[in-house]
């Protein structure tokens, strides 16, 4: 496995990859969000709901919308995942080993057997809401489950980037051992409550991306606002330019710099939307029309209908812009609707049972290789 290819991601980045396979949409789950982790020993989204003073006290609509956003569900606690509840008995056999993921009474168990012996362990951390991988803990060590759940095909299959692992023991078949530092990287983009630079304490984390993770200082603001002090308002992210937004989102979705530094190649880079977007000829940091948030509201699920994005494309690629302050771009001779279907094609990653929208906006030539 190459350390430089996405197919063989550097270990520390596998967690980040998980974020990218999180599927979209979901049922409203959290109606009020606390900005900080709970002080109790085990952080759960439910505890966040129960917090007396929350972001949702004032920012009602945003918090209500965000409760359904995929980032809010980047990780889910045991018993909270609708996919597992809907599919309570998942089973697959890979090589000599048979895997089973069973959900009963609000708890999910992951087990693997070689026919003679079986390892079973509870699933406490579900990385992803739809497509999902599990971080397991056994005898004080962390493991990344060797199989993941893929809702498109309603199946368990080998976890992304683990296809080259050929287990020779039942424990190896259960999962890939991961260091605490690596697991920390996973939690950093799937949960809230980590202290920068500090060792991971899973009990102090809250599944999913909470307000404070992006809006640094939200907790202080909440405390001060309760005392009618509005001088400590978190930084306005809307004031960032397109380049800064790309870097900001890229903290988890991977920046152009990250991909170049780590020399990542192959179809797998389609998961790294900020990098792919910045490859586009039309990307320039001082143009807000190409910013991530020009098309996506991070507090809401992404719209899956291609026509939803037409107006975003036409903000540049339209003759109506000829006289505007912002320069206009070439006008498509083929169509003025469903632009993304041609110019941002869906791309498969082998073994991933999922398609990703390639954010490298371009004129796609028939039969061309995936452009790096």
């Amino acid at each position: 496995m190459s350390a430089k290819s996405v197919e063989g991601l550097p270990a520390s980045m596998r967690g980040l990859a998980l974020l990218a396979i999180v599927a979209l949409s979901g049922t409203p789950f959290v109606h009020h969000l606390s900005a900080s982790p709970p002080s109790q020993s085990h952080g759960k989204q439910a505890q966040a709901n129960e917090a007396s003073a929350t972001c949702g006290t004032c920012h009602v609509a945003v918090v209500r919308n965000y409760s359904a956003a995929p980032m809010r569900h980047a990780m889910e606690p045991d018993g909270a995942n609708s996919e597992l509840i809907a599919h309570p008995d998942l089973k697959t056999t890979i090589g000599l080993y048979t895997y089973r993921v069973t959900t009963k009474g609000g708890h999910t168990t992951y087990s693997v057997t070689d026919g003679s012996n079986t390892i079973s362990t509870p699933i406490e951390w579900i990385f992803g809401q739809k497509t999902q991988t599990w971080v397991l803990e056994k005898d004080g060590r962390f493991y990344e489950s060797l199989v993941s759940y893929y809702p498109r095909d309603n199946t368990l299959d080998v976890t992304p980037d683990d296809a080259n692992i050929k287990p020779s023991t039942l424990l190896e078949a259960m999962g890939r051992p991961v260091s605490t530092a690596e697991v920390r990287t996973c939690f950093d983009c799937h949960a809230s409550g980590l202290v920068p630079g500090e060792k991971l304490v899973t009990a102090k984390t809250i599944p999913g991306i909470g307000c404070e993770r992006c809006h640094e200082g939200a907790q202080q603001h909440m405390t001060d606002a309760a005392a009618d002090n509005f001088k400590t308002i978190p930084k306005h992210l809307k004031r960032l330019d397109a380049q800064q937004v790309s870097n900001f989102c890229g903290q988890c979705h991977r920046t152009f710099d990250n991909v170049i530094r780590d020399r990542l190649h192959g179809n797998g880079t389609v998961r790294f939307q900020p990098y792919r977007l910045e490859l586009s000829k039309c990307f320039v940091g001082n143009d807000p029309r190409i910013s991530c948030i020009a098309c996506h509201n991070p507090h809401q699920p992404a719209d899956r209908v291609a026509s939803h994005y037409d107006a975003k494309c036409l903000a540049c690629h339209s003759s109506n812009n000829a006289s505007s302050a912002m320069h206009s771009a070439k006008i498509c001779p083929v169509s003025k609707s469903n632009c993304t279907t041609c110019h941002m094609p869906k791309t498969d990653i082998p073994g991933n049972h999922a398609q990703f929208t390639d954010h490298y906006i371009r004129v796609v030539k028939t039969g061309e290789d995936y452009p790096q």
Partner: protein
Amino acid sequence: MTPLFPRQSTRALSVAGLLIALFFAPRSCASQQSASTFDDLASAAAAARDQQNIPVAIQLYTQAEQLNPSWQEGWWYLGVLHYSSNQFAEAIGAFNHLLELAPRAVPALALRGLCEFETGTYDDSLRDLEIAAKHGAAADPRNEQIIRFHLAQLLTRASRFQDALEQYRYFATNHINAPDLMIGISLAGMRTPSLPKAVPAAERETLEAAGKAGYTFLSGDSDRAEDLFLQLFAQNPSAPNLHFFYGMLLFAKHPELAVEQFRRELLVNPTSDEANALFAFTSVTAGHFADALEPARLAYASAPDMELAQIALGRALAETGDLKRGAELLEQVISHDPDNVEAHLGLLSIYSHTGNKEELNHEREICRRLAS
């Protein structure tokens, strides 16, 4: 556990014997000697060597070389026999003759490098061993340990600490252990340009412990390594370069944890240019540009020629608003290091923020080329 570094005389014979297999040349030159005296001397020398009668063998080879100074095999065995007898200066002389006749005799270069190490001509030794290793002298697993260990020590002495740690990684991943090895790792990790044999007895215990922590990390057990480093920090709260050592180990895969180690190093060692530069650079790679500014300024003020300080300050300035000065510093890096990807990433970002599309596309293509 594989025994490493046996007693010198045994080691010398062993290494020489192994390298012979790589180099052994037929006595082609000898065949041109019509005088039976030379053949007789050569045969007698070989017989003495076979009988382990080293003093006589040396005498006979010396006499034979006086008759035929272009006899490569004779110089080879003369060098090896002197090396085996700890007569390193004489061995160097023999290998010099051989390398004049056969400049590509990599095993001779390796053995001369080891002899130079013993005579204290360390710069020559580093040059020879580095070339020998590059041309495959360390490819034979039987030679690998001794060549890598000496090379690692010399790289440390030459302040090429990261290159040294890469050599030491081989021992950790292969679970090869020895006290001097731990001290060597410690010296490299703690930026001490010295040799293990020069370490005073009073300092050995602490250095061995630090080396053990580094060795454990390099072997892949980062959780155990963290425990060992935490013990070291508790026992040596004001020791310089300990946090730096751990930070450097974490840097490649876990920059978010490394930055905290560099920050703590600066509490102990506030004037360290390297710690300031690395703290700044790690903050840059994490996108925390404002945090990078002050340490980058300090590092650059103290060490304006340090490339890392130039990059960190250039990028930090540019991303916090001083695009002009940032660009100047990054251009300065590129003027002497045209393929420095960090400097190009910094310029790309500047052109993106300013909307200079032509230069942005140019830098984007350079970055893609450098990452390919």
